[in-house]
């Protein structure tokens, strides 16, 4: 059933390539239909825990390649939410890509990507996971950079890092396979635990390989540079997919493989070093997550491009979730999963609204925008709710998950981690509010006078996402109850939660009450706004230069737009401290390789004599090596 639906989707993708450019919208409607049916299929699998499918492929040597799928609570939750979100994004894309000049291959690859996405979540063993992981990496290359020279440079970071990570994971998988002779996840975890008990350095090496694979994909330190490049240069509607869904695979892998392993170690191990009741390794990874979130926050504050800003915000949120997951308490894991799903929703909303802005204005730099709230109210509202959720302000869903993360950090006695998360959360508020203000509030540049709201079909996904944010905010149990069944399936203690109320060791929150309080105060403020003094519309120049022509002072319009260099004073505070530039590091590495390559190339096209010379020299070297060995 699962595989046939995949084949059906792939076949549809292939057939759609033959649709003519004039009928682009048919192609996208087809994709939406396929995605809808896939969503429905996954929905019907709810509760069929343990349902599995297996397909034998080639067996080369001793390795039997086969595809194994299995439905577990974890895989169901992730696949259902991600597919549903991609369905809503695809509705947006129908309109965006209906023009003749838009790339027709994006949709094709995107549908394959959606299939890979479901397959990654449903895969029952490590080999299947790796197969679809790699396929996803390869295919996403073409969607991020569908033949744009600029986006090619951006996608490089993503691609190289992902590939290196995937290969590291491959080595890890096969090191384990050579010990356990199976790809089954549970038995491999048990095998790795045995290796840990034998205290062999191999165990740490294998774990490190898996960590590399997962962390490169999820852009944790020190691989945090790619989202800013890739998300900002990807097609606008795909950015939301990339940021909302694809960046989560690493965390999914961690929950699938690393968390059970560490839990196992913390419960049964006699030999491994512990710190704060969790294995040292896990503790270090939690710190990596926290540091990532802080670093990403600072970088987001600096950026002037709205998509870039949202990308850095994604990295920061991934950092929270990673920290929360790796402290290994039930509350932490539940909070992590909850935050992953919430982040998927609100980040999709943010990116979709940014895409809507760009669809109408073709502008990405924040200081060239402004005052769009009146022109595009629905988009504005989506963005507003999105950043409220992202900043963790009640009563939306981001609040609920952040609350759980703080609670788990505090109850697990990780004060420093909690401080760092608090810090970056505050920072998130700084940059997100700036984005809201620069893009939607303030003065409307005159060139955007005739900007309209996006078509209705593009608004539908925004409505859906707003609704989701509010509903999950009020009833966190809708997600947390399935999360509880995940915890149960992972043999962890369940958390205490009802549809409306969350309980932690320290306190409890009743979400509807919080919502009512906030809704009441908002209504109060709105009434005040209505009965207050009537407003008068003032021209931009009147407001800023008292009616004088700025050209007399040698100024341009951009220079007195407040959004340009918004946080410059804040950045000056850090001027004294030395900076490390990760991107520069990667770039210098690339330059080194290129220099070596040119050297080799030059050697290859030099004269025949040197060819003979090196030929003989290497034979002599082999002889000398032989003399030394024997």
């Amino acid at each position: 059933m699962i595989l046939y639906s995949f084949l059906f989707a792939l076949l549809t993708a292939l057939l759609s390539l033959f649709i003519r450019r004039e009928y682009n919208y048919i192609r996208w409607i087809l994709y939406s239909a396929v995605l809808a049916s896939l969503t429905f299929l996954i929905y019907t699998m709810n509760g069929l825990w343990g349902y599995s499918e297996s397909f034998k492929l080639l067996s080369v040597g001793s390795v039997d390649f086969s595809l194994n799928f299995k439905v577990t609570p974890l895989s169901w939750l992730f696949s259902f939410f991600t597919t549903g979100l991609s369905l809503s994004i695809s509705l947006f894309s129908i309109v965006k890509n209906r023009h003749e000049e838009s790339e027709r291959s994006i949709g094709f690859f995107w549908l394959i990507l959606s299939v890979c996405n479901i397959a990654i979540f449903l895969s029952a063993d490590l080999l299947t996971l790796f197969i679809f992981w790699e396929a996803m990496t390869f295919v996403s290359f073409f969607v991020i950079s569908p033949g744009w020279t600029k986006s090619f440079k951006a996608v490089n970071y993503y691609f190289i890092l992902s590939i290196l990570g995937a290969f590291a994971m491959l080595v890890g998988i096969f090191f384990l396979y050579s010990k356990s002779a199976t790809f089954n996840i549970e038995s491999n975890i048990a095998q790795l635990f045995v290796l840990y008990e034998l205290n062999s350095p191999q165990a740490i090496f294998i774990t490190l390989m898996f960590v590399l694979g997962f962390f490169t994909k999820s852009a944790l330190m020190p691989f945090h540079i790619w989202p800013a490049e890739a998300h900002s240069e990807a097609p606008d509607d795909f950015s939301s997919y990339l940021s909302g869904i694809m960046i989560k695979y690493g965390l999914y892998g961690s929950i699938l493989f690393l968390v059970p392993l560490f839990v196992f170690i913390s419960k049964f191990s006699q030999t491994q070093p512990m710190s704060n009741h969790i294995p040292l390794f896990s503790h270090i990874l939690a710190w990596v997550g926290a540091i990532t979130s802080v670093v990403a926050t600072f970088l987001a504050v600096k950026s002037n491009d709205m998509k870039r800003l949202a990308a850095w915000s994604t990295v920061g949120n991934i950092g929270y979730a990673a920290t929360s997951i790796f402290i290994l308490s039930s509350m932490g894991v539940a909070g992590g999963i909850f935050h992953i799903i919430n982040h998927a929703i609100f980040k999709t909303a943010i990116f979709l609204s940014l895409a809507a802005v760009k669809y109408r204005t073709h502008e990405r730099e924040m200081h060239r925008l402004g005052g769009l709230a009146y022109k595009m109210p629905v988009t504005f509202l989506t963005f507003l709710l999105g950043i409220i959720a992202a900043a963790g302000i009640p009563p939306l869903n981001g609040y609920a998950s952040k609350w759980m993360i703080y609670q788990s950090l505090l109850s697990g006695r990780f004060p420093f981690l909690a401080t760092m998360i608090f810090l970056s959360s505050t920072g998130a508020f700084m940059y997100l509010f700036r984005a809201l203000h620069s893009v939607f509030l303030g003065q409307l540049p005159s060139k955007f006078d005739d900007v309209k709201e996006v078509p209705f079909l593009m608004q539908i996904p925004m409505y859906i996402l707003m609704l989701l944010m509010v509903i999950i905010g009020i009833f966190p149990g809708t997600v947390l109850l399935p999360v509880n069944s995940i915890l149960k399936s992972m043999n962890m203690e369940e958390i205490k939660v009802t549809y409306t109320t969350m309980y932690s060791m320290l306190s409890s929150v009743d979400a509807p009450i919080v919502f009512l309080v906030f809704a009441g105060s908002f209504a109060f403020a709105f009434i005040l706004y209505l009965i207050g003094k009537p407003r008068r519309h003032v021209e931009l120049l009147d407001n800023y230069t008292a009616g004088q022509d700025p050209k007399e002072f040698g100024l341009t319009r951009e220079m007195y737009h407040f959004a340009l260099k918004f946080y410059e004073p804040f950045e000056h505070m850090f001027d004294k401290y030395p900076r490390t530039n990760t991107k520069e590091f990667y770039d210098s590495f690339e330059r080194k390789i290129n220099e070596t390559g040119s050297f080799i190339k030059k050697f290859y096209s030099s004269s025949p004599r040197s060819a003979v010379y090196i030929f003989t020299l290497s034979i002599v070297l082999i002889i000398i090596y032989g003399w030394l060995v024997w």
Partner: protein
Amino acid sequence: MRETSFNTGKFFALIIVAVLGIFMISPFFDTGSGKKISPRLENLKDRVSLHYGLKNVNDASKNIEECQGDYYTCREGVKCNNVIYKETADAETGPANLVTSIVLDYRAFDTLGEITVLFISILGVALLMTGFPALPVKNESMIQSAGAKFLVPIIMLVGIYIFLHGHLTPGGGFPGGAVIATGFLLMFMTSGDYNFRSRRFKTVETAAGTIIVALAIAGLIFKDSFFANFLPNGRLGDLFSSFLIVIIYSLIGIKVGSELSVGLRNLYTGEKDD
């Protein structure tokens, strides 16, 4: 390259050559255990060529088949019926010249490959020299051309003798062909009016090649083995003996002769289809 680095190149080349030389010489003065190359060869007892010399390969291989599982001592216990010059008739291979019997009977397939190498390299030369200008012809002297006209028939005759008599005396298709080619070389180098038609030579050459392969395939048809000797062998040492080998050697001689002439001509004047 600058003068200094050039000298370093020479110096390192000397070192490389010295190391390689020491390595390559060491097996000849090896005193370790195991089989090694003998400083003085005494006999051919443990070599396959002993049976080529005795012309009893079929017996030897039957013997090996009989004493299965004991392969090592098997070679030495062959019942020996060696052939005698001018007495043995219908030996398993005809020529009195043992090298010829190897070249054209025991290891005839190598020779086919050898022909092919020559053919393909002359083909390569032709391809490379296509459309290349001819060498300037020097003013020919009377003595040269007259001497050549006198010499060439003799050279040709010697060549033909060498390959026709290859089964009895030293020589054979390759040296014979080379001698013939030298004759043609002399012809077109000395006398400018000699009309050298490459196409004729090529036709003769490829026809000879075709016949050789066809004869080999005929062996496959008649005797169930490629290159099998399906003509009578006659008495060892007679002029009229081992007919197939004489035929094939003559064909090889014709082929190599015309081939090398064409190759030399190509180098001399460039390839033209005339």
